[in-house]
């Protein structure tokens, strides 16, 4: 069990979620014991490297895993309704209505043979069976306009391949928002887009959130996006939460070496030119046979600071961090703040160390 980083009435509560896939090679432990929550009007950012379970955990919220191949345990409550084990019929009512998802690959999730407008109208009619065709079409047009598609009256009758990458992404967002969902999950909504288009789409998400007070989960590998968009951040490694808290706490006073690794492996456009890009050594772990103890221990450059062989033998619990209310971290280090300040910060942001003096 984890405590929430913020108080209030969370719209989504994920508690001890575990998702496993039996495969020919063995059991893939994609998500293990994951807990988090999101309130209306707030944004949660989920970060972590490829294969860390970001998409699998979010797809569970929408009940998108095949019941025959995925083993799911734990609890996911959307506005108080338990989603784990919910019938497919009830789930479909929820999906695209109360909860919507913008997928990683926009082209793959738009149907290539149907016009954009028709797909949007269909999404609307599914949850508004009383709406006429004409009403649905005008709603589709309105949404295309809202997401900033130029000349929406012409574009509405085009096919996905006639849209540019950024326009397709915006069409996906229009599709996700057409039924005014209370919870929107955006899985890498801007990866592969140019920074200028990315900025437009992030603006759009923020405007829409302000207007509808929706809860947003944004999955991304870009910590800059998290810093600018998210209220809370969840850092995932090997299917588990390794650090969780407000974006400010997690990004300015991180306490877990993997989070340090993420921060130090990307340069900043405004960084001191003495800053280094420090790689996380090694490769991501196998989820068929996750490492013993702390899942990060085979790649961790700080484990010799932990007495004994604890990192290799004992899984650290997700416990309150030294600093910050509701800030949680999964690491055995006794004084992470000191290590971060003395070793990591001077290399990745020398100018910050100067300022503090």
């Amino acid at each position: 069990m984890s405590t929430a980083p913020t108080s209030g009435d969370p719209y989504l509560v994920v508690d001890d979620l575990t998702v496993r896939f039996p495969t020919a090679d063995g059991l893939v432990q994609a998500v293990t014991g994951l807990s988090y929550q999101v309130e209306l009007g707030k944004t949660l950012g989920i970060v972590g490297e490829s294969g860390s379970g970001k998409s699998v955990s979010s797809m569970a919220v929408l009940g998108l895993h095949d019941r025959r191949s995925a083993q799911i345990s734990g609890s996911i409550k959307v506005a108080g309704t338990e989603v784990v084990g919910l019938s497919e019929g009830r789930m479909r009512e929820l999906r695209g209505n109360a909860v919507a998802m913008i997928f990683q690959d926009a082209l793959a999730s738009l149907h290539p043979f149907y016009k954009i407008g028709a797909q949007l109208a269909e999404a609307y009619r599914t949850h508004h069976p009383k709406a006429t065709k004409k009403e649905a079409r005008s709603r589709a047009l309105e949404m295309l306009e809202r997401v900033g598609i130029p000349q929406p009256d012409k574009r509405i009758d085009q096919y996905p391949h006639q849209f540019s990458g950024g326009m397709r992404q915006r069409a996906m967002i229009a599709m996700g928002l057409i039924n005014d969902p209370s919870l929107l999950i955006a899985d890498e909504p801007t990866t592969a887009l140019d920074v200028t288009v990315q900025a437009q789409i992030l603006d759009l998400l923020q405007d829409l959130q302000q207007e509808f007070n929706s809860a947003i989960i944004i999955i991304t590998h870009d910590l800059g996006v998290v810093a600018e968009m998210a209220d809370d951040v969840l850092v995932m490694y090997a299917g588990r939460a390794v650090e969780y808290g407000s974006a400010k706490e997690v990004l300015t006073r991180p306490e877990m070496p993997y989070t340090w690794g993420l921060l130090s492996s990307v340069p900043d456009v405004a960084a001191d030119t003495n800053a280094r890009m420090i790689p996380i050594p090694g490769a991501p772990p196998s989820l068929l046979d996750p490492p013993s103890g702390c899942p990060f221990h085979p790649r961790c450059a700080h484990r010799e600071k932990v007495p004994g062989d604890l990192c290799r033998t004992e899984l650290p619990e997700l416990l309150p961090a030294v600093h910050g209310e509701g800030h949680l971290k999964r690491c055995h280090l006794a004084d992470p703040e000191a290590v971060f300040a003395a070793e990591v910060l001077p290399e990745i942001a020398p100018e910050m160390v100067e300022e503090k003096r």
Partner: protein
Amino acid sequence: MTEDATIVEPGEERESFEELVKHTHSANELDTSAPPVLTVENLRMYFPIKTSLMRRTVGHVQAVDGVSFVVPKGGALGLVGESGCGKSTTGQLITRLYKPTGGSMTFEGHDLASISNREMKPLRRDVQMIFQDPYSSLNPRHTVGSIVGAPLRVHDVVPKNKTLSRVQELLEVVGLNPEHYNRYPNEFSGGQRQRIGIARALALQPKLMVADEPVSALDVSIQAQVINLLQDLQREFDIAFLFIAHDLAVVRHFCPEVAVMYLGKIVEIGDRESIYANAHHPYTQALLSAVPDVKQAATGGRRERIRLTGDVPSPIDPPSGCRFRTRCPIAQEICARHEPPLLQIGKRHKVACHFPGRLGEHPREPLTARLLGVDASGQPDPGASPATDLVEQPGYADTWFDLDGKTIGRA
């Protein structure tokens, strides 16, 4: 996929943080005394658009339309800009994947633009390319040894019985286990595959490397490994880089000099400081302001930024005058009538805009009107005498327009 049978390299055994840092580099520095290794002048590439039936040419994609720049020996020039602006095409022209429509590319006394494929062959050794995609750029049916050894065989640089030992040396240089020469690409992770591509490009000890998005397909945690490796190699073997990437922060780290492209043209070029701290082109300013900043976490919320509306126009039918004008927040009449010349406005800083200035300080009157012999709206001005030396030159002149002092600056 984490299920890949990823091989752990000897260099990747867990090190202490201190040791880890020792193997990294801070940002590359500019050496202003380095002579050019590549000088590109007015380079153009127009791809013909043909009808499917008659193969008649009905138009052209102006992918690269008159770019000029210099890559210094052992240095690095970054090429940035939005998708489709012509970055890869520029790189492909330099490695002569295509023969350019016009312009020149002087490398070691040869014009790569005009020489024949046969004359080009010995030069290919000196100009190598690293590709964006570590998955599709390596033949899955060839062993790592045969991939890295192929250029050695083609160019006949080492005796046959020495190829293997040279391949193993190269694998070691890029931090792979030399014993793994007989494995196949799918046995390696993305970052390791990119290293194989780098080893292949290194095999012939090139003087110039064109790196087209060398890290953008890699997970963030792996990008730093590859960037540091490229920095190692650059220093050790004095290799010059044309470094193409859309990630402005990575480019800033790797490249002491940067060119910003928009729709086939360079709109601003300069040293790191001029581009990142003193950009004068509204497009560069918009690009920079759109990059999300981790430091923003301290205050929360988004940074103030310049909103660009609309999509990038087509290079088949680019806008008249300044190509950026359809999205430019400060465009005026003259922008539709005349193309702004690339003016030198600092010791190592050039910009192509009628209204160049720092963010929020763009002049009201076009700076270029007199030079072009027109009035402020771009109509012909019989009283003005147009400058005759506005032809774009690679490199920098000793004198420039000092915008702050409204005088001629001198080196």
